[in-house]
């Protein structure tokens, strides 16, 4: 009887730990690779939209490494993140590739064309900061934090 009670105790403790861990698990980062989808989601969630114009043909794994960084991941949770590849060879429709569509979009939205480029838009679709190019991790974190509303 005492043995059974002990095992029950363990089960309860383990269940409680699991429940606690479950509760503290942080919000997921929301990623998109389509501008319109990201924009709609950002509006729906009342979050700012971070757009990253990037290339598959990038010479380094710079953006991948940034997005895997713990500190950056923490800040990214305040955004809807949309990563747009400007050299994606997949067809968007019968006329153009996803890459050429994203490239046109970058030229139109930013009037600049280079990758990587980070830019933050509010829920109304207005740019709220100047775009940021290839920079040290610390600068990217500062830039992202500048786009996090104060209540967060």
């Amino acid at each position, binding site marked *: 009887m005492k043995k059974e009670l002990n095992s029950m105790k363990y089960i309860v403790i383990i269940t409680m730990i699991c429940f606690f861990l479950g509760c503290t698990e942080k919000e997921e980062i929301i990623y998109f690779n389509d501008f319109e989808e990201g924009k709609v989601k950002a509006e729906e969630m009342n979050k700012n939209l971070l757009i990253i114009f990037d290339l*598959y043909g990038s*010479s380094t794994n710079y953006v991948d490494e940034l997005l895997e960084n713990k500190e950056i991941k923490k800040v990214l949770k305040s955004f809807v993140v949309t990563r747009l590849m400007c050299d994606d060879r997949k067809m968007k429709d019968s006329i153009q590739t996803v890459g050429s569509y994203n490239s046109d979009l970058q030229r139109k939205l930013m009037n600049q064309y280079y990758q990587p*480029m980070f830019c933050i838009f509010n829920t109304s679709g207005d740019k709220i900061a100047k775009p940021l190019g290839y920079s040290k991790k610390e600068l990217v974190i500062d830039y992202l934090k500048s786009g996090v509303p104060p209540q967060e």
Partner: protein
Amino acid sequence: MLLKEKEKKTTPPKKKGNSFHQEEHSISHWIPKPDWIPSLNKDGDIILQQEVGDNKESLQKFLQGSQWESQVDDLWNNRSHKGGSHVTLPESNYSNAFNYGIKHSEEFPLDQRSRLKNYNCYHFAINGVWGKPIYNGQYSFGDYRMDAESAQEVLNKFFKRTYSQKAIFGETIIGTNYSGGFPMHFMVYGGRDNAGNIYVLQKYGETDPPSINRLIEEKLQEYKFFNEKGAK
């Protein structure tokens, strides 16, 4: 076609200044003249296709300052007329890299989402212009996935900015896609054709094999040309 383009000769715009900044926006301005078009044969050798009006002198000019400069006589005398008149450049660090890319396509899957990675553009361009092995089963100078800062450092230390008109076939690095002040892509100058199109030798991304392409100029991008310090 080439003849037609040649007939469309126009007077080139007069140069107003002499700054790199102005030059960056005028790399298309080119006095039409006979030139050669670089490409690859099935073995990865670099071939130069003869255009209308091309002769030994234009070949000499095209290869001036390059590792093939002294071989112009032989190249001209041994030119082939099969599939259009052309000369085949002898084996080089570039042709070895092109050849490897063609023969080992499994290492260069072209699939943009592939996790299989290879050497990058910085490695290709820097080793290329230095005449070192790029990739022939083994790498040589530096990190084969050199980062942007290190690539910029090599430029600062060993190269100097030049005008596109002073670019040398196989010897001039072109830095482009400047983001945060760093060139995100390096290419090697591969000459201009009759119509003024620039050709480049490059390794695009990590999954593509090295290739020779016509440069599609992007108006909103900078193109900076660099010759090795001491180059003519």
